[in-house]
C-alpha cells in the first residue's frame, strides 16, 4: 500500500459530490421522461360494434355516407367526435364499409358522384368506388371496417 493509492480528502469529496450530483440528476431526469411521455403512448378506444343505420338507406352501386358519434377523452377534455363511413353494396346482400380518411396524410375524402370517384382535396388523391388508389400520392387503398348486418341494421367494428 503506497500513499498515492489512499483516497485523499479532496478525492473523496470530489467523488461524493459528483456521485450525489449524478443521483440528483437521475432523480430529475427519470420522472421528467415519464411525465413528458405521459399518456401519449396509450392505446385509443376499445373495439366496439357501432350502429350505422338501416341497410335500406344504402343506395345500390353508390357509396353511401353514414355517420355516428363517439365520445373521446383527450387530456382533461371530453369531446364528441363525428365518424364517417362509406358503405357500398352492389347487390343488396354484401356490404363493404370504408373509412373516409385518406391513406396519404389523413385528410377526409369525399365521393364525387359525377366522376364516380373518391377525391381527397389535400393532395389530389383519387380512389375508385371500392377504395383502390387511381391517382395521386395515397400509398394504399382506403381502410375498411369489419361490418355485420343484424335485423336489417348495419354495424361496423370501430376502435382498437
Amino acid at each position, binding site marked *: 500500500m503506497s500513499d498515492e493509492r489512499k483516497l485523499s480528502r479532496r478525492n473523496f469529496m470530489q467523488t461524493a459530490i459528483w456521485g450525489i450530483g449524478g443521483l440528483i440528476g437521475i432523480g430529475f431526469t427519470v*420522472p*421528467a421522461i415519464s411525465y*413528458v411521455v405521459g*399518456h401519449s403512448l396509450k392505446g385509443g378506444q376499445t373495439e366496439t360494434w357501432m350502429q350505422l343505420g338501416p341497410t335500406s338507406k344504402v343506395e345500390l352501386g353508390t357509396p353511401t355516407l353514414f355517420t355516428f358519434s363517439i365520445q373521446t377523452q383527450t*387530456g382533461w377534455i371530453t369531446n364528441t367526435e363525428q365518424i364517417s363511413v362509406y358503405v357500398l353494396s352492389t347487390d343488396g346482400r354484401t356490404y363493404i364499409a370504408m373509412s373516409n380518411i385518406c391513406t396519404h396524410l389523413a385528410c377526409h375524402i369525399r365521393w364525387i358522384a359525377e366522376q364516380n370517384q373518391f377525391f381527397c382535396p389535400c393532395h389530389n388523391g383519387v380512389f375508385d368506388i371500392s377504395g383502390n388508389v387511381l391517382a395521386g400520392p395515397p400509398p394504399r387503398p382506403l381502410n375498411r371496417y369489419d361490418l355485420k348486418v343484424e335485423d336489417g341494421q348495419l354495424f361496423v367494428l370501430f376502435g382498437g
Partner: protein
Amino acid sequence: MVAKINRWLDERTSWRQVWDTIFLRKIPKVNWFYTLGSASLFVALNQAITGILLTLYYVPTPDHAYDSVQYITTQVPLGWLIRGLHHWGASVMIVLVVLHMLRVILYGAYKYPREVTWFTGVILLLVVIGFGFTGYLLAWDKKAFWATTVGTSIAGTLPLIGDTILRIVRGGSEISAVTLVRFFGTHVWVLPAMLLILIGVHLFLVIRNGISAVPKRGG
C-alpha cells in the same frame, strides 16, 4: 479519451480557468450557514425544471386552468411529484432566501465592498416573492382566487394610486381571464428573465469580491 476531449476544448475555450474560478476559488473558514445561498440556487433550479415541465400540460385560461392542474395531479405519470416539487419548492425557496438574508445581515456581509451584491439580493428577494404571489393564482381554485382577491386588494389600499395599481395588476376591475394570463406571463417569462439576470450579477459579484469571513468578537 475524456481527458483528450477536455484538453481539446480547454485549448479553445479556457473552460478550465472558468471552472477553477467558480469552484476552486479561495474562501475563508466558514460554517454551514454559508451554504444557504447555494441551497437557494439549487431550489431555484428545481423550480425552473419542474416549472418548465408543468407548462407542458398547464393551460392558463379560466375554463382549463383548474382541470389541467387536476389532470397533471391525478392522470399524468408522476405529475403529482412534479407539481409537488414545484409547490413545496416554492415555500422552501422563501424560507431559504430569508435565512440566507438573515445570515448576511447578522454577519455584516453586506458591507463594503459587497453592497451591490446586497442590492441585487434585495431585488432577488422581491422577485422570489413575486414568483410566489403570481404562482399562487395559477392553480385557479377557490384558495387561489380569493388569495389573489385579497392580495390585489391590499395593493388597492395605497393612497392616491391604489385603485390604478389594482386595476393594472388585475388587468381590469376584477379578477378574470385577463388577470390569470398576465399572472402566468409574469410568472413564466418576466420574473424568470429577471431572476436569471440578477442571479448572474449576484454570483459574479460573489466570486469577484470573494465571500466575507465569519466576524470575530471584539477587535
